[in-house]
């Protein structure tokens, strides 16, 4: 059994809303090993996005520990968390989140930019990834010139550019028609086949079933954690 790359140990997250405290996650414990393909599901407001933000080091747990690649990131300062995000995580969002004034290649390069990689090397790598997601013809296009599916493929290339430990996706097909959604899911299957670790938050049962493992949340608890055959 290989060492898990993500370890969640009784993680809680609460938000203070004036006099009330909203418990978004009430003690979540699970491990993820390298190469796993996980979907996180559950009804609206059950804490999926909160969990993904914690996994993505965009936020810190209120209590509990989160070990990423064996390193405890739950108590890190802001700069260190930024470094971790830039080097070890890849993000894919429901609304693509590309920067509008930058071209396809420049969008893909962003994570490398903040790691001070040599410009020529970054450019080369970004072009390679753009080709890999089928955008060889669109390198210098701006995001608004692309379809939703193409934009999401740019986002996938961007999530891969820093060779992350884990790729995190929040409703990646939520804004897409079913055909484009299927395209994206095919890309995810390929990535899984190559041994990438994927965590996908989704409402869509067909998306959920494609994963190897589904964690179901309910009211900030893990309701079920099943492995598909």
């Amino acid at each position: 059994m290989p060492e898990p790359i993500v370890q969640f140990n009784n993680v809680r997250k609460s938000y203070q809303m004036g006099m009330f405290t909203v418990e978004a996650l009430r003690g979540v414990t699970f491990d993820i090993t390298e190469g796993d393909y996980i979907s996180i599901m559950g009804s609206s407001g059950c804490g999926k996005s909160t969990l993904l933000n914690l996994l993505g080091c965009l936020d810190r747990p209120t209590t509990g520990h989160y070990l990423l690649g064996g390193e405890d990131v739950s108590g890190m300062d802001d700069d260190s968390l930024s470094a971790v995000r830039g080097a070890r995580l890849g993000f894919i969002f429901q609304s693509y989140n590309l920067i509008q004034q930058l071209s396809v290649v420049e969008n893909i390069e962003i994570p490398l930019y903040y790691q001070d990689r040599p410009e020529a090397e970054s450019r080369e790598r970004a072009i390679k990834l753009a080709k890999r997601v089928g955008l060889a013809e669109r390198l210098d296009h701006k995001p608004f010139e692309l379809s939703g599916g193409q934009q999401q493929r740019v986002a996938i290339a961007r999530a891969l550019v820093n060779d992350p430990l884990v790729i995190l996706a929040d409703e990646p097909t939520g804004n897409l028609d079913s055909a484009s959604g299927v395209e994206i899911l095919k890309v995810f299957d390929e990535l899984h086949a190559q041994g990438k670790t994927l965590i996908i938050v989704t409402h869509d049962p067909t998306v959920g079933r494609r994963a190897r493992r589904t964690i179901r949340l309910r009211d900030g608890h893990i309701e079920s954690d099943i492995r598909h055959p």
Partner: protein
Amino acid sequence: MSANNPPPKNDSAWRGLSVARLQRAVRLGIRSLWLHRLRSLLTVLGIVFGVCSVIAMLAIGEGASYEAQEQIKSLGSQNIILHSVKPPDEQKVSNQGSQSRVLQYGVTYSDVQRITATIPGVTVMLPARIIRDYVWNISHRVDCEIAGTVPWYPTMRNHRVASGRFFTEQDMAGQKSVCVLGAEMVPMLFPMQSPLGKQVRVGGDYYQVIGVMEARGHDAKTDDATESKDKSAAYRMFIPLETAKLRYGEVLMRRRAGSFEAERVQLHELTVKVASLDQVTIVAGAVKAVMERNHKKKDYQIDVPLEMLRRAERTKQIFNIVLGSIAAISLLVGGIGIMNIMLASVTERTREIGIRRALGARRRDIIIQFLVETVMLSGIGGILGVMLGVTIPLIVSHTAGMKTIITIWSPLLAFGISALVGVIFGIYPAVRAAKMDPVEALRHE
């Protein structure tokens, strides 16, 4: 599997400021400013006008005060100048009680004696009698001041002879009929030829022209800045003092409204030279005391060029302070404009900030990104402002004939301040951008 590059250590706080990173930040900044060209241009205008007005006003002010100071200096900073002035109550006082009255006033030869005798530190005295009359060359005529004075006038009043010579002790002793013309009147009297050696006529007397003085800038009347507002004071002819005494005596007749009026004035002007600069004020006080003791009426006026110079310098200082405040305010306004735009830009780009933060940008990367933009805005404004600010004084001196002086430090200062304004007013929006929570920023619509 290669998914194991360790997170980079941020050991040095300055890692984020590598030259390459800064270059990229500048390129990024240019692009986002270019994306909102009109907005950037309008923002920059505030700084442009601020910087440009500072430089232009400084140049014009500097030029004006330089001219004033040069004129005062030309009077001689070691000199004290006394003028005879008709006392204000002259109309009522009748000297002799008859219908022909002789008005007696002004600086006298005994004043000269008293000053030399009682005040140490006075080296040379320069008396002058001034008579208003027409000077003729055949049919050419100039209304002119004829100054009877001494041979050392040119050296003491820093007024050099341009051609020919000034009269000498011998000319003076011999009461010769020689004269030296002011440069300004030469073209009017002798439009075609050189005046040297020619004769001019005043009344019934002829004088031989032996020299021409240097021109005194384009505003010749300020040669005696306080003496007379009369335009004709611009034209002066010099003759030996003894010759003047011989020709005119001490009583001057003047026809006025049908009756004659006589004035007895011994000296119209007396220049006192002091041995050293630091004694000027003391000697001036002593001269004032001597004059007050011997003149019941205030029939004289004392001008001290050094004090005028100091006053001019003080005026210039005040001017500079006022100018500095105006400059500061206009740059402040420009800075506020920049801050306003940057705050709007930060709000507008909240989502972008969230994306960049999620993809590994640290707070200081965001700060640098926004700060580079503001500094570029104010820097471009500064450069345009300097270019405009240097051009305007040139145009002004060309069209209005005013002297302007652009000192090297004024564009540097103006540019430096504008860059500083960019940094100061850029910091708050940049910090605000960097402080945003990435999760919140990503959710922003």
